[in-house]
């Protein structure tokens, strides 16, 4: 690894307390509370218009909320202007200054801080090396590729050793392959520098790949916050289940401490919610297993039906199944080993869902 001077400086936790922002009748942020731990990589994930970018702008100081408090560590920055917040930021379009060279862009925050010339040079070099652009310092911005610009923006955002880094959909302008490479790189950089990072994206895969925790935002509120695995495996609302990953819903009824699908009592690992009445069973296609005729499927929740269609998608196939009572389910089967249990349209099929994979959410979108 390259020896660099940029050290994992003491990063700061962020406390967002009851932040509200309205635009006329539209509520962009509705009393948002959020704690970001020191050194944590937190992603704000949500559809467009959810308020995720607004929240990031509040953190950067570009948008003044109507009420609420923002703390960086112990410091209340609610009223601090942007240039006094000392947070790094990577903009969606990078906002690299076209009238400065690559090195000029990276040096700019250092010059603003009256850092001696020699040190500026050293730190710019180090920052550029860190993002693997060591040789491009004299280039003009318009001579760079999209990926290179992204790296310069990153170098500029961290060169002045801020304790917090904000990133606003920084990879959305890149093509898929480059984007995936950069995801890993940003993640590694975060590990190395240990900066408290708030990352905004609408790409759930990106969120799941990069984050320590993901906060899913919709309608100006944090709907669920947790580790990527929890968010994916244990959505606590229909919205989260729908928004993240592929989900299908089967109606269930909660009664007497058990979940009933028609007259079948679902086998569960964790006890279902204590609420009563109509709920939904969340079934992700890859959680279902197609059972061979010989397998009794003991201990699994079983679904029987007729194969409607099989769609080959390369690494897996998606099998559409008609259940009794007009319901439908689809099941994802890995291409490898699929021959063991052949399926064909019109043939009967039996699928099992492990008790551990049973997720039950309230029927409303947002409980």
């Amino acid at each position: 690894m390259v020896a660099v001077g940029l050290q994992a400086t003491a990063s700061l936790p962020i406390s967002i307390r009851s932040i509200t922002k309205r635009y006329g009748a539209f509520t962009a942020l509705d009393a948002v509370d959020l704690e970001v731990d020191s050194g944590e990589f937190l992603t704000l994930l949500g559809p467009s218009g959810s308020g995720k970018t607004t929240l990031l702008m509040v953190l950067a100081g570009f948008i003044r909320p109507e009420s609420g408090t923002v703390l960086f560590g112990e410091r209340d920055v609610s009223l601090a202007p942007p240039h006094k917040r000392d947070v790094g930021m990577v903009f969606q379009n990078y906002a690299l200054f076209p009238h400065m060279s690559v090195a000029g862009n990276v040096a700019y925050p250092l010059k603003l801080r009256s850092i001696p010339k020699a040190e500026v040079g050293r730190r710019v070099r180090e920052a550029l090396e860190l993002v693997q652009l060591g040789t491009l310092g004299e280039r003009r911005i318009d001579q760079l590729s999209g990926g290179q610009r992204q790296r310069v923006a990153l170098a500029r955002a961290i060169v002045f050793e801020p304790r917090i880094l904000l990133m606003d959909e920084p990879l959305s302008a890149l093509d898929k392959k480059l984007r995936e490479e950069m995801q890993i790189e940003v993640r590694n950089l975060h590990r190395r520098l240990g900066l408290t990072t708030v990352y905004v994206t609408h790409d759930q895969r990106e969120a799941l790949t990069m984050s320590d925790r993901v906060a899913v935002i919709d309608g100006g509120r944090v709907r669920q916050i947790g580790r990527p695995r929890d968010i994916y495996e244990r959505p606590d609302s229909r919205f989260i289940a729908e928004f993240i990953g592929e989900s299908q819903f089967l109606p269930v009824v909660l009664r007497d401490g058990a979940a009933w699908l028609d007259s079948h009592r679902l086998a569960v690992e964790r006890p279902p919610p204590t609420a009563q009445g109509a709920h939904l069973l969340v079934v992700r296609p890859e959680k279902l297993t197609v059972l061979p005729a010989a397998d009794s499927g003991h201990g699994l929740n079983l679904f029987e039906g007729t194969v409607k269609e099989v769609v080959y998608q390369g690494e897996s196939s998606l099998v559409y199944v008609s259940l009794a009572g007009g319901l439908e389910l689809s099941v994802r089967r890995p291409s490898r080993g699929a021959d063991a249990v052949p399926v064909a349209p019109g043939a009967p099929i039996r699928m099992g869902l492990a008790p551990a994979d049973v997720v039950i959410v309230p029927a409303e979108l947002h409980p």
Partner: protein
Amino acid sequence: MTVSTGGSANLGAYRVAERRERWLLQSLVVPGLALIGLIALAPIGWLFWMSVQGSSGFTLDHYQRLLDESYLRTLKTTFELSILVTVLSIALGYPLAYLISQARPRLAALLMLLVLFPVWTSLLVRCYAWLVLLQRRGVVNSWLQDMGIIDAPLKLMHNFTGTTIGMLHIMLPFMILPLYASMRSIDRDYMRAAANLGASPVRAFWQVFVPLSLPGLFAGIIIVFVLCLGFYVTPALLGGGRVYMWSMQIERNVTYYADWGAASALGVVLLALTLGILWAVGRLIGFDRIVGGK
């Protein structure tokens, strides 16, 4: 047309068709080129030719005469006035363009209308309006005297000052328009990025906003300066007869002396100076940036 069936023989036919299409498309510009050549280039060529024609063929007399003291003085006045008006139009136009570029759309449209309004008014009307306002017994002087602020009327008209004011008023929109266009195209994120990196609003303005608005500024400077160099009406009306511009010398040579040669030489010199300035500015900052390239 016969269709060739022999595989590669098609290639030649395609090329012919392609070439014909290209020629056809390029021929569309012929009328435009011809018109430009006729109404723009031909007179300039004629100008050059006349400027070196004497009673007995080729001569440089007309140019030699320009070394006369009164012409050199006129040249100096022309440049002084043009530079002054350009500088003042930056001083007034830049803040105004900035204000308009930052205003909300409806207010910006209203302000822009106010800026453009004078452009739709006759040049003469505007000059006379200034005369009414600023002359010795004009509105402004009467008002200042009635208020007891001044004893004797200020000499605001019939001199260099009056000419400067009048020309500034006429030139201001030509400074503001390119500046405004340039400022509007500056992404708000640049200023946010500067603030985020630690620049106070004032520093962000000078270190980021101003450099990014330079293409518009240079365009404005060139337009205003070049227009000023050839100005006639305003200095003639508001200068009290004292402000001699290059264009007036041209007019004088034509109407009083019928000296087309001398007038042409004056025109050629003005054209050469203008082109020289454009060239120098182009070398300095890249012409494509001014005309709206990268």
